[in-house]
């Protein structure tokens, strides 16, 4: 109650901070929604996992507070419900990706871009392999591996582009942050 009585001056920085904190999760979600729209591209189905992988890796590396496990779980669940795969699968894969990134972030965050890209190039195929294995297990079918390999390759290939954009956003978010 006492908080609500705080002056209007207090409200604006608070809204600002909230928007900054919510941006990574919101942008990741919006990206996933936009990539599901029919673009008329042949490899479109591989774009959405590539984006989710890159975004979860990037934010877990540079701004882990903005993408806590609960939010990653929610993002994964959304991706599962939106797509056609088993429900809970993307949640597991993204959680694992986020957890692995957090574990190594102390060493990795100070490294050059090339090294972080290399780390992503190792993590993304591992995540895809996990998702492939779990899908095959839960649908009891031997799935064609090409789409999974293509998605992993696309994620690695697109990461520099996405990182270029996300680094700008990240600096922007940090730049004007109050206190």
């Amino acid at each position, binding site marked *: 109650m006492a908080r609500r009585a705080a002056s209007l001056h207090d409200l604006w920085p608070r809204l600002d901070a909230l928007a900054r904190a919510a941006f990574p999760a919101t942008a990741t979600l919006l990206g996933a*929604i*936009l990539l*599901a*729209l*029919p*673009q*008329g*591209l*042949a490899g*479109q*189905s*591989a774009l*959405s*996992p590539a984006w989710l992988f890159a975004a979860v890796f990037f934010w877990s590396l540079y701004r882990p507070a903005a993408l*806590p*496990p*609960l939010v*990653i*779980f929610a993002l*994964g*669940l*959304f*991706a599962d*419900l*939106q*797509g*056609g*795969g*088993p*429900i*809970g*699968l993307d*949640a*597991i894969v993204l*959680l*694992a990706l986020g*957890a692995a990134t957090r574990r190594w972030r102390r060493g990795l965050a100070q490294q050059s871009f090339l090294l972080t890209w290399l780390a992503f190039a190792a993590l993304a195929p591992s995540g*895809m392999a996990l*998702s*492939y294995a*779990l*899908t095959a297990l*839960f*649908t009891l*079918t031997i*799935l*064609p591996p*090409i*789409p*999974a390999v293509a*998605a992993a390759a696309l994620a690695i290939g697109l990461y520099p582009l996405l990182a270029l954009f996300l680094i700008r956003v990240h600096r922007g978010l940090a730049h004007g942050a109050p206190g």
Partner: protein
Amino acid sequence: MIRLSIPARQALGRLALPLLFAGAFALLLLGKADALLAERARVAIADALAPLYGLVSHPLARVRADLAEMAHLFSLASENAALREENAHLRQWQSVALALEAENKTLRANLHWIPDPDAAYVTARVVADAGGVYARAVLVAVGSHHAIEKGQIALDDQGLVGRVTEIGARSARILLITDINSRIPVTLERSRARAILAGTNGEMPRLLFWPQETPPEEGEPVVTSAEANAFPAGLPIGTVHYVGASPMVVPAAHLTRLDIVRVFDTKRASVAPPEATARVSRPAPPGVVPHEW
């Protein structure tokens, strides 16, 4: 918000990740055990997002169309000449078709042919790709008072697209013929042999279980078969194309760039049960042109 001591909060934070992992695994198992629940959750999300998809996909489609139009401007003259030639060619075919239609009509009247009932259909816009890495499906936006039902068949202007697998209040999910779970009874047009068309998640589905004595020929048209009563017979699917030694089918429908699909209500076109045949065995009145697929 419950206030916790710092150690308690830290402990909770450490517990969150394993708990969420366990939760996700539980969801995986639950979705496998209770497919209906998973389907309902999926439909709810699709319904919630359908208006948003519709809102964004309209301008996007417009931009794509405009870009295509601009590309056309450069090849207008040559395209025009080619179209004129094709038009003249098609005129000849039109007269052939009209003659055949008249002949067909008289033959049908003579044979007391029972016409297939007209199939009702609704047209819907594809608003989202609902597949993913391991599935091939699309989401179509339908009005809130639609009559689309599970199991109905979707076609684009060229051929078979897939089957409706989930329906919500505002959206419907269509499993494409290329999905790995798709199995369709088909007829090879030249040999009239039956086969099964199985999706592979790739661009071309594979032909299975064709008779050994009549292997599918390269370029042979493939149409649906009425076996199992899931599809009306004769819907165009595509043409046979051999990849190595295995016969695949190149779909006639533009499955990677679906824009508008027609969803057919074919229930009325299904085979009547035996006890009802006595009532429908009367021939069609002459002059009624049966609907052609």
